[in-house]
């Protein structure tokens, strides 16, 4: 390395050291101030996250009364760090301008319901008039997945029209 190169190197070092504009401040105070979203030090409290592949469930008009399948299944993914947890779902009644479809006629079939037998829809279906467990686990940290296939029992006395309601997901956790 020649003398000229050495001088240029030293000049560059001195200029850079004097200007702290591009320096990264990694002090504790700085990190604490930048992490507004959570506590400091980072919380170790358990958490649970539920993700659904769809925002809604749609039942298209059918050719005749009977068990009508939803247009598409709903994918469920749960990530939890709780020692023990369950995710349950329950439906409201579906209401329309000319009547109501009670929640016992809204059904779900999934991996955990294979032993169930519904008197109308048959094997694997559970009515959503009560809370049904669709996922559970321990503090594995792994994602638990399930696919929920919904169905609706349509009867002859259900008047034509549109009906709307809600399926609520709730997690039950043990600290």
């Amino acid at each position, binding site marked *: 390395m020649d003398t000229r190169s050495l001088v240029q190197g030293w000049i560059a070092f001195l200029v850079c050291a004097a200007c702290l504009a591009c320096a990264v401040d990694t002090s504790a105070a700085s990190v604490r101030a930048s992490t507004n979203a959570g506590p400091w030090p980072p919380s170790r409290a358990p958490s649970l996250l539920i993700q659904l592949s769809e*925002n809604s469930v749609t*039942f298209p008009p059918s*050719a005749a009364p009977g068990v009508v399948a939803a247009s598409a299944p709903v994918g469920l993914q749960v990530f939890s760090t709780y020692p023990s947890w369950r995710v349950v779902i329950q439906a409201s009644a579906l209401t329309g301008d000319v009547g109501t479809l009670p929640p016992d006629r809204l059904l779900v079939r999934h991996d955990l319901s294979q032993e169930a037998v519904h008197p109308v829809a048959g094997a694997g279906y559970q009515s959503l008039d009560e809370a049904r467990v669709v996922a559970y686990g321990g503090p594995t940290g792994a994602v638990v997945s399930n696919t929920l296939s919904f169905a609706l029992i349509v009867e002859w006395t259900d008047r034509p029209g549109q009906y709307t309601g809600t399926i609520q997901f709730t997690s039950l956790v043990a600290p």
Partner: protein
Amino acid sequence: MKHVVVALLGASLLTVGAASAQTELPGPSLAVLAEIGSYMTVSLSTPTVQFSIAGPPGVYDANVPIGVPVSVTVGCNAGAWSVSCAASALTGPNGSIGPERIFMQRQSAPNTPDMGAGAGFESLEVKRTVAEGVPQAPQAVEVLNFRILTQWQDRPGTYQGTITFTYLMTP
């Protein structure tokens, strides 16, 4: 030994306490939309009505199945519905029998004026109301008897035609 029993009881109580200490956290929800269409079904207990006429001209009852009238079953989820029927002429190789000579009696209305085939029997030359109703699961709504009136000018032979049922529903 006494200490062991006490320890087990304590563990049991702890387990019960842990199970009841669950916390309920609300999660996401799915909107549900269901669309229910209009349904109506009309079915008959038999696909065929047959008249076996071995005697002189006159009024004859349908005889298939023998002695069993035609039952009409209706299911509908619309606000109101009605079922009607009318007959075509019966045509044969040597002529035809007009629909005015085919008659229907509703068992729920056995006393309509005699139109030539006895009280309660209405000619099917025009569309006749069979039944009317409101939303219901499929069930028998009416029982029908049929008759035919033959005349001297009807030539021997086999005649065929159709009794057509139509329905109407209003939302």
